[in-house]
């Protein structure tokens, strides 16, 4: 999987690459408008992470360029300018997702995974971990061919976990994933525990081995 990261903030770009490194993604960085447009025109990627404010031009123009060239790459906008207008403009220009800075790396990783899954859905619409089978298209979870009924939030959490395999997920990252932008309006996110606990219980009851590990005082980790 090849990912192009268009981001002028070097340190942030490095973090993203480091976080994604274990997932067999091949990351390239473009730091400004010109190098980004050159890379877009000359290579193919599975996913493009696009910052809107770039030296030398706007990320929206790059979206236009992709559209004009008939390129099919999935694009996730990552912007510090959390403006509704840019979001709408970007999505209208063919971007697939919009993530406002600051974000948790886990959130980005999960979105990339989901985007790639969607763009390759013929080959990737079902994923199995041991006896656990997830059908992304039908949004169904099976253990040993028996369906496990999950709530929407539990299913969301499950996808978030498998999008961040072998990564420690903090409570705040989980809360932000579930509540979106509004998570930081609250000081307590203990409800996350309840949802994770339910998910773990349901999977365990169905006979799934315990893949969600509790990391003391920090959060959880999907080990598979």
């Amino acid at each position, binding site marked *: 999987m090849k990912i192009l990261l268009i981001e002028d903030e070097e340190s*942030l770009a490095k*973090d993203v690459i480091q976080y994604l490194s274990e997932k067999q993604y091949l990351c390239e960085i473009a730091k400004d408008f010109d190098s980004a447009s050159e890379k877009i025109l000359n290579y193919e990627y599975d996913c493009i992470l696009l910052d809107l404010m770039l030296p030398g031009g706007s990320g929206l123009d790059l979206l236009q360029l992709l559209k004009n060239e008939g390129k099919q790459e999935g694009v996730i906008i990552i912007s510090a300018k959390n403006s509704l207008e840019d979001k709408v403009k970007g999505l209208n220009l063919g971007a697939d997702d919009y993530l406002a800075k*600051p974000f*948790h790396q886990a959130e980005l990783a999960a979105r990339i995974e989901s985007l790639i899954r969607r763009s390759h859905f013929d080959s990737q619409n079902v994923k199995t971990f041991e006896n656990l089978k997830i059908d992304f298209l039908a949004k169904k979870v099976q253990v040993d061919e028996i369906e496990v009924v999950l709530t929407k939030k539990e299913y969301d959490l499950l996808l978030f976990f498998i999008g961040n395999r072998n990564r420690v997920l*903090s409570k705040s990252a989980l809360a932000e994933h579930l509540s*979106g932008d*509004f998570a930081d309006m*609250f000081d307590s996110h203990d*409800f996350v525990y309840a949802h994770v606990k339910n998910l773990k219980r349901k999977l365990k009851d169905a006979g799934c081995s315990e893949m969600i590990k509790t990391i003391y*005082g920090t959060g959880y980790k999907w080990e598979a």
Partner: protein
Amino acid sequence: MTKLLHKPLKAFAIYSLVILLVSIPVYFLVIDYIWISELDENNWLTLQHTRENLQNKSYSEEELKEISSIWGDLHPGVSLTKLNEKPSFQDSVFEAVRPNVFDVDDGEDRFRGLISYIELNGNYYRISVETNVEESDETVFAIAVVTFLFFIVLVGGFMVLNRAIASKTWKPFYLTLERLKDFNLSKDQSINLPESDILEFQEMNHSLRSLLNNNVDVYRLQKSFTENASHELQTPIALLKSKMDLLFQEKGLSPETLSLLEDIQAPLSRLSRINKNLLVLAKVENFQLSEKEELDVYGFIQTSQILFEDYLKEKNILLEVKVENSIEIVSNSFLLETLIYNLFSNAIRHSPKDSSIQIVLKKDLLSFSNSGEKELDSQHLFERFSTSSAEKISSGLGLSIVKEIVKQNNWEIHYKFLKSFHVFELRFPNSKFLPNPS
């Protein structure tokens, strides 16, 4: 409050009243003085004339007696009286009020008289000349009436003049006043003050213009400073957050380190929230969200209910939503969403465990109530960073954002403390009511 132009009018009216009141006795004294000196002169002339003629004609004593009696009958103004002894020959002036049958008003008349003495045929006579004088009460009354009439004319004239002056001379002043009233610093507009050919107004407008321009500049600078500062802070915050995520992935972290990392999360997310709210506030203040559409308030309540479900459950808060009717408003959806989420999350955050929250939609009112211990300081409640509690997560901006949104949409918001409940009541004037959806 008195209007500017009424103030001098009142002063002028009072001043002219005083002057006119003072003028009444003065007029009277002057007129009386002239009147009396004229009469005295007239009396004196009559006397001289009479005296000369009496001496020249050398009437006999009998004739004099007859003249005296004829005068008494026909012309009571002049009388000749024979004296038995020699008088002092000193002229004297007198004034007398006598009954007069011809006077229909009060039956009295005032007279001015002159008494003199004459020696005719060895006898001494007293000649007195009397002339009717206008009575003083009549004079005073006449003057008072005339003065009063003039006063009315004067004040009436003042009023008419005042109005004429107001509509002409003061027009630029009132125009300026109107423009100033309409002026709103937070609305990005330039002020257009009227031109005037009056020096003072021109100077005033000039000073106002430079004052306002300075303020607008300062305001713009301050606004753009907040916006730029929070934009600049976005990147370091994003970096901190991503570094934290990476740090969590490190293997072999001790429980102490992990708990330290966890402790950093809370202030970091608060920092992130404050910054985000500052940006939202700047955006709202800058009218960057002017796209409007028809919005159903109840729909937003329902969405927020789903969003905040977990947080309500976590604190075991009972939520009661009473909807009599929904409200349709025309506004920006992001603004309405922010407004409702802020008020709702506020209510949840400030509610104790196992309490209840009420959301009421009724006519053009939307209210959020949550239980609380004591009344909040409603004066500073909506100010930036006026923390009313020791709560750590608060950005101190939620209610300022609410107030700014309310202000921009010409809605109203009130806080009250009722039966141990904090109530935030929103009013959407000129909104459409939708039937109860349930």
